[in-house]
């Protein structure tokens, strides 16, 4: 995403650039560099969220097809109105996100999209057998997708929202008195979230180091180019 394009973002994007680390209005080269970094970050988030919208269409279609197949074989007692309402909710939310992303990628959007994804999956899990649902794996799609893209912060956020949503599912549809298996599932999810977040953090650090090297090489080349004519 080019800086010029990203600087054209409205609302959240513009207000995010206003202050520098000195707490003054941005004017100098340092603050311009911060503006560019912020614009790049917002541009990156816009791209990521657009990609998530596409993935949501694909995963939604796959889940819908799975529900249809299992229902046709009589293995899923979920009523039609529930299936259609969930699908409609997914479609409407995805269209709203796409519309928002046409203008900008507000900072809060990634938290909202992730939370709604997890809530929709929890509703699906609830209506397809609760803790015994075959759609439990869908939580991991959201986890891996977000933690790889955004890092440790989002991984912890996903695990927190999952924990709360899954406890709600267990509370409203208890499998029995012994919840050891459910506790293991939740702890496993936390483990995967922290590990995925850690790997993403390492990857981000290495990417930053690489960018630093690239900048240094470019600067040294420019300096070498200015020195050559003098050497002659």
């Amino acid at each position, binding site marked *: 995403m080019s800086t010029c394009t990203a600087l054209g973002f409205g609302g959240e994007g513009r207000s995010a650039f206003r202050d520098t680390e000195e707490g003054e209005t941005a004017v100098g080269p340092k603050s311009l560099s911060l503006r560019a970094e912020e614009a790049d970050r917002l541009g990156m988030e816009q791209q990521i969220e657009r990609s998530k919208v596409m993935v949501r269409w694909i995963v939604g279609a796959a889940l819908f097809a799975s529900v249809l197949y299992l229902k046709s074989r009589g293995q899923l007692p979920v009523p039609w109105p529930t299936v259609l309402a969930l699908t409609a909710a997914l479609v409407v939310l995805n269209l709203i996100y796409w519309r928002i992303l046409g203008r900008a990628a507000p900072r809060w959007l990634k938290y909202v999209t992730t939370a709604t994804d997890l809530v929709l999956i929890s509703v699906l899990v609830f209506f397809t057998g609760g803790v015994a649902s075959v759609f439990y794996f869908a939580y991991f799609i959201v986890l891996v997708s977000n933690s790889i893209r955004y890092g440790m912060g989002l991984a912890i956020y996903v695990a927190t929202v999952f*924990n709360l949503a*899954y406890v709600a599912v267990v509370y409203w549809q208890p499998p029995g008195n012994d919840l050891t298996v459910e506790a293991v599932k939740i702890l496993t999810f936390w483990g995967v979230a922290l590990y995925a977040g850690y790997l993403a953090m390492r990857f981000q650090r290495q990417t930053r180091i690489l960018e630093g090297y690239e900048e240094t090489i470019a*600067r040294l080349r420019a300096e070498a180019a200015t020195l050559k004519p003098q050497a002659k």
Partner: protein
Amino acid sequence: MNEGRDPQPRRRTPVLTAPVALGVVAAGIMLLIVMIGIAWRSTNAAWFLLFPVLLMGVLGALAVGVLWGLRHF
């Protein structure tokens, strides 16, 4: 000499200020109270499944409190 280069390394915005650290520690204490309350009074086992998220919150707040106390930020 390259004039475009920064004379000194850029200082990053502080990630944690005193009010934020205080708020996080206060939230951690609240979560600890909730944990103790669940352990003490709850009759439904499902509430205990909230322990991972509560524990992570308490440990996170503790870490922030200790780091702030040691003037790490």
